[in-house]
């Protein structure tokens, strides 16, 4: 890497702010996410020119314009594909993808799945506001059943999908959830995604205060969030509640159940979070509506990345066959000379 020799960079949040005026609606959750990213990046010691933000289309996808790094605002749903081509051919770059619930799960669902399945070393941030913001408020694939919007005046008829389940089903090697307003948690989750080698997926619960205000209110409201957030920590029992008085254990029917600590139950009976355990990730991703919403890292495992594999194939081909000899391949097979 060209920057290997430079001493530890002293960058600040300001260095990552571009000269473009931010054009999200006042109060939009996207501001908070942008701010956390701009706070985390200076601490990572990566030169700005090594960072690339690739996005699709939507309010969320305007993100790259506001980052003073390399940025590519592409087309609706296709950012993972473009980021994949970039990362394969330039594995030394740090490539982040910013997408929305419509961009990433509707029009671009297929690309999202395949980028995750390939374990391309890109970091995908899906801003989930459960609505199409940029097109002014139609329901999205994560909107709740019966959602009344301009395009569904009598309520939506399709069941929502859960981004975390999609990511786990696609075998992403890093799967997490965070919240726009949980600044510390979000920063930590971004940092973890950066440190992960392989495709990282973070669903960020984001408030669209114009078209879907309060979509995540129980999880974000100070008064209720204790009961509605389950903060995942590696190696720690699943405890939640305003006074951390509740926990989750596995019931006799192998289904998770909520228990109150104290009444003959202590934390030793609770499920202990393990980011490397696929069953744990699966259970957590499918907790029903009566359960709190898990935030944090569901899964973090190591696997060969696609970009490593692609570059290793080139190197091994060079070793085996020697560097490409154009003259030789043009003259391959049976040849004859006309005098």
């Amino acid at each position, binding site marked *: 890497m060209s920057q290997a020799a430079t001493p530890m960079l002293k960058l600040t949040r300001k260095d990552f702010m571009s000269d473009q005026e931010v054009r999200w609606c006042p109060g939009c959750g996207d501001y908070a996410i942008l701010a956390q990213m701009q706070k985390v990046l200076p601490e990572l010691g990566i030169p700005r020119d090594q960072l690339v933000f690739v996005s699709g289309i939507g309010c969320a996808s305007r993100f790259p314009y506001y980052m003073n790094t390399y940025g590519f605002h592409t087309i609706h749903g296709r950012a993972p594909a473009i980021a*994949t081509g970039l990362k394969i*051919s*330039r594995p030394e770059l740090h490539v982040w993808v910013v997408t929305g619930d419509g961009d990433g799960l509707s029009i671009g669902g297929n690309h999202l799945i395949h980028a995750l399945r390939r374990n391309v070393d890109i970091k995908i941030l899906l801003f989930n506001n459960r609505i199409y913001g940029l097109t002014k408020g139609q329901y999205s694939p994560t909107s709740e059943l019966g959602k009344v919007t301009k395009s569904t005046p009598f309520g939506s008829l399709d069941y929502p999908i859960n981004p975390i389940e999609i990511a786990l089903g696609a075998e992403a090697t890093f799967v997490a959830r965070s919240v726009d307003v949980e600044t510390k948690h979000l920063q930590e989750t971004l940092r973890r995604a950066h440190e992960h080698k392989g495709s990282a997926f973070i669903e960020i619960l984001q408030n669209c205060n114009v078209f879907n205000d309060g979509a995540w209110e129980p999880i974000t409201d100070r008064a209720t969030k204790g009961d509605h957030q389950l903060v995942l920590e590696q190696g720690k029992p699943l405890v939640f509640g305003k006074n951390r008085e509740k926990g989750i254990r596995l019931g006799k029917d192998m289904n998770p159940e909520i228990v109150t600590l104290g009444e003959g139950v202590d934390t030793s009976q609770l499920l202990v979070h393990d980011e490397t355990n696929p069953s744990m990730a699966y259970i957590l991703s499918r907790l029903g509506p009566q359960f709190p919403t898990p935030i944090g890292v569901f899964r973090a495992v190591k696997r060969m990345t696609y970009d490593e594999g692609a570059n290793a194939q*080139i190197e091994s081909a060079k070793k085996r066959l020697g560097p490409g000899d154009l003259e030789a391949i043009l003259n391959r097979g049976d040849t004859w000379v006309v005098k």
Partner: protein
Amino acid sequence: MTTHTETPPRPQVPKRTEELDEVVIRFAGDSGDGMQLAGMQFTNETAVAGTDLATLPDFPAEIRAPAGTLFGVSGFQVNFSSHDIFTPGDNPDVLVMMNPAALKVNLRDLKPGGIIIADTAEFTENNLKKAGFATSPLEDGSLAKYQVFPVDITQMTLRAVEGLNLNTKVASRCKNFYALGLTSWLFTRPIDPTIRWIEGRFKKTPELVDANIRALKAGYHFGETAEMFAVQYEVKPARLVPGKYRNITGNSATALGFIAAAERAGLPLFLGSYPITPASDVLHEVASYKNFNVYTFQAEDEIAAVGAALGAAYGGAIGICTTSGPGMLLKQEMINLAVMVELPLIIADIQRAGPSTGMPTKTEQADLLMAIYGRASESPVVVLAPATPGECFFMAFEAVRLAAKYMVPVIYMSDGYLANGAEPWKIPKVSELPQIDVQFRTSPEGFQPYLRDPETLARAWVKPGTPGLEHRIGGLAKEDVTGHVSYDPINNEKMVRLRAEKVARVAMDIPRTDVRGDPSGKLLVIGWGSTYGALVEATERVRAQGKSVSHVHLRYLNPLPPDLKEIIRRFERVLVPELNTGQLLKIIRAEYLVDAKGMNKIQGYPFKVGELMQKIQELLEE
């Protein structure tokens, strides 16, 4: 030549050798009979023997269609000659037929007096019925005007591989090589290139090397010994331009052209693709050259394939994607973006007969307007088309060169006929290929993302990872020079016009248009793409009758050659033959306000020389 002890002793039967100038052979059988392979190997043999040649593979989309059916027939036609030829020939002189269905489908094309070699073992009652013959044409006298050689190819093949412990099914699969051996003998083609090919292909299964070579040789020796073959034919080498040659298909040449261009640019090549007939072979071939700094990426669909190629181009690689019509449609939105962000991107559309899934293995030229115009809003790109299989190499190379020079998407339009067709190819010397000079911008001094080169109007290519040049690009309207998002109306029109002007300036790179025939006269025939061979031959033959017809073949379709206007003016009439309903015709009429006429065929097959000549003569007489 070594002989196997298994082959019967060869009594010396005196044979006559007749010299021929040009021969057209068509091999046909079930799609599982290996006729494409037999045809390709025969092509290679005659190429090595130094004749000129052209081929027309013609196979169904089904991999193994039900045996013996008419729609399951797979054919391969090769024309070889001691003089220059340009087409696979309108009508075969020889049919090598592996079953009744093949005969049924192909007989109508055979020249009177032509040769039929047929595998008698397959002319069973059941097969005859499937092919719609009431009685066996080999026995009922209906083939009296042809020379028929009934040979029990199946049985003889089984006998040739006896003792190798192959089951009958595997053993009888060698019969394509038996038929090839016999045909090779009949036309005095050398079989050692095929032996070498078999040895390479079946390296891992020595018993198949043995079996196929035995079948090949048995067929060859049968020709030598059987009394029914009294004459052997010879076609002398053609007097081609001196140099070193190989036989090449259009898809192979396309793959090599892309690799050569990336090499000459000194950049990695990134090929994103999603399998589709007839483009897949380009992906396959490029994938085998990883040691050339080649990334091949089989994407989840065509959109991701072109997206990944664009991502790689953004990163500083030569980004290419290969596809055919249905995939081309899916890529247009990404090409639209590439137009907007002004990155080099090469899209190869190996056209096939449509619309929709259409006839995947058949050829057509009906994607032209889609390539030039088929995107949202004003979205100009460069469009190129090679004219022959060998030329695919140079036009693929040219596509990369222009994309990098002008920072623009280039659509390269081959088709099924070029893709699978083969011809002798004079191998270029690497040192004679142009250098592709790519300069990545590294200096932050005065940098603006949309500053343009005053001559080409290209913006700078900047690789992410370059310190001090961090900037954002995207599909939203851009302010001139700064590239900032801008909805200013005047600026928008200016940028639309700048992008168009940049593509128009590619005309500076177009070589002078070659007019075949007189530079002026009665009729000018304008063609593009794979119709080249048929148009050359048709116009030459009509000219030889003393008539005034000339031919221009376009390799650059957008922009058009700057001298075309002047050339058109010098002719009284213009004819534009195409394998579509008149797409280039529309453009020629609109651009040059000339009352050009079309000649159109949408049958999945190339033009025949005869039908073109007829149309040309008609127009000359009107």
